[in-house]
Structures are given as structure tokens and as C-alpha cells.
């Protein structure tokens, strides 16, 4: 399970590093030094798509994959939840203490809204 999580992360790193959507073959090539099977990369990408963190579109006979949001947007989403700024979702976590200025909160919200518009 830990290995699968680590793979998901590595695949996201590859996708984030690319300006364009990538095919399974391209992601597999980028992770060549790990010696993964092609089907493993395909499974990971399918899983990530099912979890809505990756978007996929068909081009010809191949699927192309792209991150659904940038790393910064995901960080902003985590932080908004951690700071209890997302309405009733807050009960998911137990926190030590929160401290955020209104400017910082606005910046986080904007980071997430920018992501939702694109």
C-alpha cells in the first residue's frame, strides 16, 4: 500500500512537470529508472483518474492524462481544510491550534478558486 502511494506520487510529479497532457507511454518512459511494468503505470493513472486528481482525454486510440489541478492548488485545498475555512468539512481533522491572518486566508481561497475556473 505504501508502495502504491509512493507510485501515485511519482506519477503526479511527472504529470506536474509537463506542460501538456501525457500518454501512459510517456509517463512510463519518464519513470524508466524505476523499472516499472507498463501496465503498472497504466493502473496507477487509471486509479488517479478515478480519484479525480487526474483528468484524462482520448486522443486517437490513446488516453492522455493531465493533473486536474496544480500542486499549489492541492496544497491550498489541504490548508483551507486544516484551517477550518471550508464550512462544515472541518470535523474531519483534530488540530493543535490554527492561526491565520485574513490576508493569508484570502490568498488560499483565491489559489483554489483560480484552479476551479481553469
Amino acid at each position, binding site marked *: 500500500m505504501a508502495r502504491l*502511494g509512493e507510485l*501515485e*506520487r511519482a506519477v*503526479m510529479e511527472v504529470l506536474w512537470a509537463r506542460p501538456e497532457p501525457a500518454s501512459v507511454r510517456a509517463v512510463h518512459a519518464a519513470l524508466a529508472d524505476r523499472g516499472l511494468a507498463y501496465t503498472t503505470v497504466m493502473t496507477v493513472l487509471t486509479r488517479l483518474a478515478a*480519484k479525480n*486528481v487526474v483528468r484524462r482525454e482520448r486522443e486517437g486510440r490513446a488516453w492522455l492524462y493531465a493533473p486536474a489541478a496544480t*500542486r499549489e492548488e*492541492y*496544497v*491550498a*485545498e*489541504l*490548508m483551507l*481544510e*486544516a*484551517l*477550518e*475555512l471550508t464550512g*462544515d*468539512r472541518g*470535523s*474531519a*481533522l*483534530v*488540530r*493543535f*491550534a*490554527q*492561526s*491565520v*491572518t*485574513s*490576508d*493569508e*486566508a484570502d490568498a*488560499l481561497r483565491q489559489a483554489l478558486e483560480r484552479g476551479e475556473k481553469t
Partner: protein
Amino acid sequence: MILVGHQLAAATVAVLVAVWLLRSRWTHTHPRAALILWQISMLTLVVSAIGALLGFGLAPYRRGLLPALLDLPPVFHELDIWHAAAVLAGLALAGWLVVNQLLCLRSTARARARHRLLLQLVARHDTDALVVDHPVAVAYCLPGRTPRIVVSQGARRLLTDAELDAVLAHERAHASERHHLVVAPFQALRRLLPSSGLLTRVCATIELLVEMCADDKAVRQHGRETLASALERFHANGTGGTPAGALAVADTPVQARIRRLRDPDRFAFPLAWPVACLLVLTALSTSAALFAVPL
């Protein structure tokens, strides 16, 4: 009607104990004892409220509530309108409470799964916690089968090493003592009546007591002053601007925790606690027993 009387008496005991808990000051010295009493009082109140409605509705049958309920469908038309309404209200209340708890469980489980996934994708593994690369200071515990302790880069920059260790110990206490399970039923109840000032206050009290429990555990390893200064840094860091609504309210509990660590009121363990416990437990068992046993 004796049945209903018992249920109402049980509810009254639970309410009186809750009022006592809201007003007492010893609770901050002995948060764990207070939490236990809160939990059984709340359970008693819920059980007896349902029991009172059903007890009134099913009074004509002079039997335990559950057996009477099971045999009810064929003879339901024999009840007059008031008794029938009470039975339906009791069943509706019970169903509503259960469904709401389940819905809340499901929505938090989803939120946690999403949060866990995102952490996996963007957080960095450090020796003792996951680190999120963001300048705003947060430290929290994501509960679950394998709980995650998370700090932001901002929190690491804000705190000294000793303070950070104390904060992590606090989060580990949340994780190991399953504090999210203590808070969840109360939060679910509040979601049912979000405009209830009283329930909001009760929830805030429970959340504060849970924090204090975790503080106590962290303090045992890392000392009062370390944790107090960590809290103070968090607190001071957040007051740079005008905090948003929710955060403005959250300010006071942090101050209460700092005060408690620096200058503890040493309230003796209240002798009334075991008495109150015994009273509520009696009320709860009476109330629950009436569901099964005929009177």
C-alpha cells in the same frame, strides 16, 4: 404513565448534570472525567427523549417498549390520535438521529479519504510527521486507521525544535486516544440543529476538553512551558489581521489553554463526580431497561 415519568426523570438528571458541567470550573483541571460524564449524559438524554415519546404512545399496552412496538403494526389503529402521534414522533426522532449520525460519518470519511490522498501526493515525509510546504502555520492530526500527523512548513519555522516536539506529542495523543470519535457524535448532533446556540456551546466545550486531554499528555513528556509557548506563538501569529468569523471565536479557547498550562487552577477532584456518574448511569439503565422490560 409511570413509564413516561421515569423517562422524564432520566432526561432531567442528564440535563442537570450537563448544566453542572457547563458551569463548573473543575472541568479544565480534570478534562477526561468531564468528557466521560458529558458522553453518558448526552446518551441518556437521547435515549430518554425517545423513550418518553414511545412510553407515552405505548402506555395503553402496559408492556416493554420494544415488545409493544413489535406487536404494534396490526393493532396500530386502536391507538387514539395522541398516542399514535407520540409513537410516530418517537420513531421519527430515533430514525432521524441514527440517519444523521450515519450521514455525518460518511461525509467525514469522504473528506478524510480525499485529504489523505492529497497529502500522499503533495506532502513530504519527515521523520515524525508529514510536512506540507506552505508558509501559514498549522499542525493537525488526520484520524483514521493509520492516523497522519501533519505540520506545515510555516509551523516548523514558527516553533523551536522543543516546541515542535511538544506539538507533535499533542497530535499523537489525539491519534492514539481516538479523540475524533469523542467529538464526532456531538458534532453530528449540532449539524442537525446548526442554529442551536446551546449545542454549539456544548460542542465547543467538548472540543476544548479534548484539546486539554491532548495537552496534558504532551505536557508529561515536554513540560508545561514548552507547550504553552508553542500555543502562544500560534496565537500571536494569527492575530496579525482581523480573523474571519470562525477564527475569532476560536481565539478564546487557545487563551484558556495557555492560561491553564501557565497558571493552573488546582481544583481538587470533585466528590460530586462519582455521585453524578452514578446518577446518570442509573438514569440511563432505567431508561434503557424500560425498552425491554414491562412495568
